[in-house]
Structure formats: C-alpha cells, structure tokens
C-alpha cells in the first residue's frame, strides 16, 4: 500500500489532486481512497488531504500518519509546518519550489528522495494563475510511477471539462518533463 499526504491551502485543490490519483488508480483496477482532513473549509488556510492506493481492498478508516509520499503545493507552508512528519527512509517528498533537490534541507536522520518543480511558473504560464494541483501531479507521476499520465487523463477531463481540462493536462505534462528528482 502506498500512503500519500498532500499539504496545500484552501482553494489550491489539494483535495482534487488526491481524488484524481485515487480515481485513476481505481480505474486501473486498483483499490484507493481519497479524503480531506475534515473541517470547516477556508480559502487560504493550510489544508491536508490524504490518499491511499493498494492492489487489495483498503481497510483503514483513519488519517495517514506515516506517508510514503508527501506533496506540498504551497512553498509558503514549509515555514509553518514540517511536511516530512511521520515519513520514513525512502519516502518521497515532492515540493513546489524553484530550488533543486540537493538544495532542499530536511530534518536529519532519514534518507528521503526529494523531488522539486517550479509549479508556480508552469501553472501561471499554462493556466494563467498559480493553481498548482494538477501541475504537481505531473511530478508525482514521474517520481512514483504509480499511475501514468494516460490514466489520469479521463478523470481530469471529466472533472474540469474539455477546455480547462486540456490546459491542466498540458501543465501536468510539462511538470512531468521538467521535474527534478533527487538521489
């Protein structure tokens, strides 16, 4: 089972990202869950969303505490919280930042694979504004190989409609190409 935690701010679409991963995985015949950290929804406030993917039925009805993958949509959150909390060796930390993976400093004692992409720039260029949730999925897909770009096309176009969906798809494909994956 792969457990994923997404950190974002209300309105950035962290929950949508979790949902798209889950639906793509389920459409492939896998089992998956996607759910928000339940609470009042406030635009701009830090939010967390969760996703689990497995090849058997998932029987856990609790939050993700020890994620294998963490996706941080908003670089500003890094000064507010430690997104690596609960991660173990080999965990994958996917950040929206201009930095290269080797420039990212995480708490010592664990070996994490750091994945970075300048999602703000990509999303601004492709979508006209820095809503990075779908862009970040490009990096996620490249770094984990859990699902392919093709798997996410259908749920993405269904969610956003053809016009907006295709622009989001383009942002995702660009991130897939431009992402930097650390050691």
């Amino acid at each position, binding site marked *: 089972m792969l457990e994923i935690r997404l950190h974002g701010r209300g309105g950035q679409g962290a929950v949508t990202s979790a949902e798209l991963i889950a639906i*793509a995985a389920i459409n492939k015949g896998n089992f998956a869950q996607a759910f928000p950290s339940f609470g009042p929804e406030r635009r701009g406030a830090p939010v967390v969303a969760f996703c689990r993917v497995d090849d058997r039925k998932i029987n856990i009805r609790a939050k993700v505490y020890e994620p294998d993958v963490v996706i941080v949509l908003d670089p500003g959150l890094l000064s507010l919280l430690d997104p690596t909390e609960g991660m173990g060796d080999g965990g994958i930390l996917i950040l929206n930042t201009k930095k290269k993976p080797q420039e990212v400093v995480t708490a010592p004692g664990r070996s994490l694979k750091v994945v970075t992409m300048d999602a703000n720039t990509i999303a601004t260029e492709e979508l006209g504004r820095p809503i990075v949730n779908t862009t970040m999925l490009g990096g996620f897909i490249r770094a984990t190989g859990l699902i392919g770009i093709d798997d996410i096309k259908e749920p993405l176009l269904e969610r956003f409609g053809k016009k907006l969906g295709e622009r989001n798809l383009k942002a995702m494909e660009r991130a897939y190409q431009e992402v930097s994956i650390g050691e």
Partner: protein
Amino acid sequence: MARTRKGIEVSIAMADAVAQANVDVIAAYPITPQTHIVEHLSEIVANGELDAEYVPVESEHSAMSVCCGSSAVGARTFTSTSSQGLALMAEIFYIAASMRLPMVMALANRSLSGPLSIWNDHTDTMMVRDAGWIHVFVENGQECYDNVFCGYRISEDPSVMLPLAVNLDGFILTHMIEPVIYEDNETIRKYLPDVRMKNALHPDNPVSMGCFAMPEIYTEAQMGREQGLLDAYPVIVKAWKEWGDLTGRYYRPIETYRTEDAEYCIVTMGSYGETAMEVVDALREEGEKVGVVKIRLWRPFPFEDFRSAVEGKKSLIVVDRAISFGGPGGPVALELRSALYGRPNAPAIVNYVAGLAGRDVARSDFRKIILEGKAKASKGETEGFTLYGLRG
C-alpha cells in the same frame, strides 16, 4: 446502466443508488448539517434523470413530515439527515414508525451540539434508538450503496412496513472517494420491484392514520410496534441473503472476522470495523488470538446471533461512539452487557468510548484499545467505561 466499478464519493454513490431504486419522493432540508447525498439527488431530479418529486423543505421537521405524507399514499420515499437535523426531526421520526410508514433514510452519523460540532460519531443516532425504526450500520461505500436497495426491500415488505435508517459514518464515509460497484438496472428491478403498498391513503378507500389513542389502546399499539420490529428480523435476513445471491455480497445481522478460534474480540459498529480488521490481522501475526465482531443490525437487535458469535470467548472489548451521560457507558456496551447478563461463562465486557466528534482513531489506537482492554478484562476491571484518549 450496466454493471460498473467506479471511483466515486460515497455520498454520490448512495444518491445514485436512491435514483436506481426509482424513488417517488425525496424530501430534505439542504443546509448544514447535510451531505452531498440529497444535493446530488436534486441534480438528478432537475436533470430529468429520475421522475420523482424533490421537495426542498424549510426544516428537517418538515422533511420528515413530507416523508410521512408521501409514504402514506404509497410512494417510495427517501430522506437524509445528520446531527442537529435529526434532532429537529425527532418528533416526526417517532411518528413515522408508529404509523408503520416505510421509507429509507441515509443517516450520516455526526455529533450533536453542544459544544457545536459537526464531526462524526454516533451521538445523533443513539438519540432515536428507541423510536421503533430498523437501524442498519454500514462500514464502507459498497455497503452504503447496497443497503439502499436492501433497505427498501425490507422496509416496504408487507409484513414489515417500517421505516429504515442506513447509518453511515459522517465524513469517514460520506466524504470518502473509494471504489463502488454499481449493479445494472435490471438486477435492481429484479430485486426491488416498484412499490405496491396495501393500506395506502386513497380517496376511493378512506382510512384514518396516526389517530389519537386513549390509555385503553396505547399499550396495545406499542406492543404492535414491538412485534412489528421483531417480525422484521426474518425479512431482513432473507433480503440480505437474496441480495448476496444476486451480487455475491452477503450481509448478516452480526458479522464476524477471524473469531473462530479467537479467545477475545473487539466489537465495533460502523466504519471502525474495517480498521479493527486491519489491526487484528497484525495482532494475529504476533500470536494474539483476537477477532472482530461487528454489529450490523442495531434494531431489531439480533440477540441470538450475537450470543452465538461470542460464545466461549473470554472477553469482549466494545468500542462505542457515544456516551450515555451519567449512565453505564456507551450504548452498545450497555446492550451487549444486557444480552449476556446472567448467562453462564459469559465473556467479560470492557467498554471504550472513542472517536467522539471526529477525533481520529488510528491503527495504533485500536492496537492500544485491544491490548489494554484484554489486560483490563483479565484483571476483572470491567465496570463502567474508559473515554479513550482523554487529555489532561
């Protein structure tokens, strides 16, 4: 619709099931606390995909009143509520059962104020435990979907004619995206033909319903309700069996997991049963002889099924999701203690109340509850209850 497997929010899947059940009337109050279930149904009706009356009322009290009226004329009726909404509905909730009006409610279980809270626990449903409805608890999206059809089949059975609540954990299930298998319409039609109620209100055949009762008849009327619920039991078991024969998914009043050789069991109701199974698997690897007993049918309570499920066990660790203030602990533990009271060699019962108003209960918490509960049972510490995770 063909049989399909979808990744979908459980609330939406449940709404789709209600549409597939071809309901005639949906009445609901659309504002907090409410779920996507009736929101999605309003879209389905507005889009012309379901020929039904959607009545957006001004309060939950009115929602249940509309449901009573529509059920009384023989229409297949649905509503959904939670928390304070159920509290406001409570007066008519009792009347629906007393008038033997079939309907299905998706009861998305959430806490009651105060303090003001909208998160998941079982406080709301326990408030109406004694109203005379059939109460079923489900633990995942598939069970939510399936039990809409089973619910109507049971509720509208001429020998039952009682309202039925499908209790699903608020947020934990209602806001979860997961795989759900949709059955094709032909299967649904076969299992759930259109409703034909005897005794429905009709101008050609005037009857009175919901009459005033003098002391001379109230006792007998209540006995009628009691007997009605007891008589529903075999219908419930049969409806679940036939659903299983059609779909491969069987439901039973008491579900068990790895209990055959278990010395002790954790007992849950609702979605916690799934996490409990996961933790029991891990504890089994370590040699613990532990199993899970899950209560699916809460009313009418399946005493015999429960007793035979726990026969010979040393102890039961019962996880409740509500408190009976000033009382004996959680309502489920109270029920189970009553079911076993005075029986020779009955298992000891240790009661935890956990996960109030959405406080997360993780695998590590279940592990702690199970091992600590086992130790308490062996020391004879079985009085009262423990409020798990209480700070300070």
